[in-house]
């Protein structure tokens, strides 16, 4: 494909109808399909969480006291540590992506596995905390406070699990040397989203 015939920029101005224009160049993608699709999906997800957060903020502003008296407190410090774990997982995955593109697919194996393990660690930690909170009497039906907690944090937890599953699935294709660079990029994007909304949720819901 002739690089010199860059595009077909002059075709509009050409007044001579008899001129046979050179055929335009084939298209090169600015962003791979998978990544673009994932970006659109993340836009929706972002708005989903924004919806939750604004509903939460408004309900919280209505309440005379928050958290309502008699309801258990949320584990702020423990979750701070957990936040660090999730962020570390995100960083690990970023590193995995770099290794994949710069060194080669095989080099991404260890960081990817670490990232997934950290992610799973995060959910397990959350699960333990949930069990404790439920034991202390925080339920969805008991108060709006509890309801929002389980709704938002639970929804995020579902996302972590979904993201981890996707990464494990990508990991298996990585081991079978079938993972494409673009596919991995899209998978990472989703995980970055899951990791990066978490601090916002933590700030809003816990603090």
């Amino acid at each position, binding site marked *: 494909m002739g690089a010199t015939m860059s595009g077909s920029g002059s075709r509009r101005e050409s007044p001579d109808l008899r001129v046979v224009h050179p055929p335009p160049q*084939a298209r*090169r993608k600015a962003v791979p399909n998978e990544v673009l699709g994932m970006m659109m999906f993340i836009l929706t997800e972002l708005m989903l969480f924004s*919806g939750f957060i604004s*509903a939460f903020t408004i309900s919280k502003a209505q309440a005379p006291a928050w958290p309502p008296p008699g309801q258990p407190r949320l584990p702020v410090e423990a979750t701070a540590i957990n936040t660090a774990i999730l962020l570390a997982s995100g960083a690990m995955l970023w590193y995995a992506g770099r290794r994949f593109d710069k060194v080669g697919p095989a080099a991404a194996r260890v960081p990817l596995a670490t990232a997934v393990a950290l992610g799973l660690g995060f959910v397990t930690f959350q699960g333990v905390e949930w069990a404790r909170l439920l034991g202390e009497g925080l339920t969805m039906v008991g108060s709006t406070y509890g309801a929002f907690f389980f709704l938002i944090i639970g929804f995020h937890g579902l996302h972590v699990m979904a993201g981890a599953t996707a990464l494990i699935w990508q990991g298996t294709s990585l081991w079978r040397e079938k993972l494409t660079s673009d596919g991995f990029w899209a998978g990472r994007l989703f995980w970055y989203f899951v990791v990066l909304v978490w601090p916002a949720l933590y700030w809003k819901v816990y603090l």
Partner: protein
Amino acid sequence: MSEAHQIDGHHGHDAHGHHEPTFLEKYIFPLDHKYIGMQYMLTGMVMALFGGFFAYSFRMQLAFPGISVPGFGIVSPTEYNALVTNHGSVMIFWVAMPVLIAAFGNFLIPLMIGADDMVFPKLNRLSYQVFLLSCIVLGISWIVPGGGFGGAWTSYPPLSANGDYSMTPLGSSLWLTAVALEFAAFLIGGINFITTAMNSRAPGMKAKDVPMTVWMICIASIMFMASVGPLIAGAIMLLFDQQLGTGFFDWKRGSDPVLWQHLFWFFGHPEVYVVLLPATGFVAEIITVFARKKLFGYQTILYTAIGTGALSFFVWAHHQFVAGIDPRMANIFTITTVLISIPIAEMMFLYIATLYGGSIRFQTPMLWALGFIFEFLIGGVTGIFLGASGADIYFHDTYFVVAHFHYTFFPIAFIGTFAAATYWFPKMFGRMMNETLGRIHFWGTIIPVNFIFIPLFITGAAGQHRRIYNYNHFPDVSTPDLQTLNIVATVSLVILLCFQTVFLFNFFWSMWRGPKAPANPWKANTLEWQAPSPPPHGNFPPDNMPVVYRGPYEYSVPGREDDYWPQNQPN
């Protein structure tokens, strides 16, 4: 065109293997975007029949309270509410969305941009399957014990949140599930549309060479995806309220009474533009072809659409002027609402300017396109009345509002669809529709429409409240002396519905018996007309994919023999 400059930007995927697809593969579980589009279209048509039947049933009750409606029977208050609710939901979520966006989007986007298919054909198939599932769930919600949901398509709590109030504990949850599934289907579809339009365009097709329809469907999809999140969030919360007994929307437990309304309308208002934009895209296509003129102000139209899209995220609270929002906020939303009518009006004027000086051919698609502009302007103008918060305090929840949004939705969902269906029919099925029947159908639709909704403007302005089963029980919100107008509206509706049989007959008869259509019957420029009618699997010959040399609206170019100039012709 030689080998050198074909596809590369075009993906190859396994769906284009060389074996002949079986019947099941071709029609029931197709991967081909054209068949998925047609599945969407046929499902939408079936749903439209339901929606129309519901409207008929409750309009009969309004005109002749208490009669046994032929074909339905006596309408009980609960049934009345369920009919109104499901009429609205079906028409917006299961007719306008699937037909305008999913059906035509699927069919047209790859063809118009010169691609062989969508970039994610399997996601595309999944999208339709989820959509079908949502239709089934909705259908089930009508027949479960307690009956269909009756809390209005906007589904405001507390009525919708509590089975004791709505008296449809199952129906309301199924309705909500169906809506959520439908959103999921369009989400998947929208991702596909945008990615395809970005990455699979034919070589040489730059942003300004993309037909308006593709632009509009893409902008609409982006708006849909950016606005639907909060409503999905709200729907999940509402579902929990219904089924688990949480108190997200329960003011008795300290929650905010209008929170749902914000979540709903945050989506709801962009949604009206989501369905509007594709229809304006079709109209743009049709008026240029049938006026043989270049689209006037291509870029401006594009900017108005983008401007509308952006602004539509700032206007939603105009649905809540009387819901107890702060009047200062009401003022802000009044201003944004009036602002948003500027770009849309601008767009309509540009369309009218396109017609100016053209050699107009009044064929059926053109009649529909002109009808669209005319009727939609009425809807838009009355929207400004409602957007002024002071006026809306009076107009809110009267039939004036009903007439307003029907003057916007009817042009969009039906006139727009008929325009597009009659215009692209030759491409879809390779046959021509009957012109005479088309015109009969046009006049038989456009005249009754005005006789349905103009009376409603009058009763509404006189103070008749909407969503009331029998006005004899609520004399202070009714207009007994205007009952004749209600009867006029209902009778016109029946006439309108009767005329739709003409369309259905024309559609299905022409599908098999119509005269064979040439590839480019309207002498149009866009790429879909350069493919055979109907396009084969893969749309264009694989060794001869189209390459684009110019914009889509080069009609009547001086100095050329033909008055059209296909986008893929080198000269």
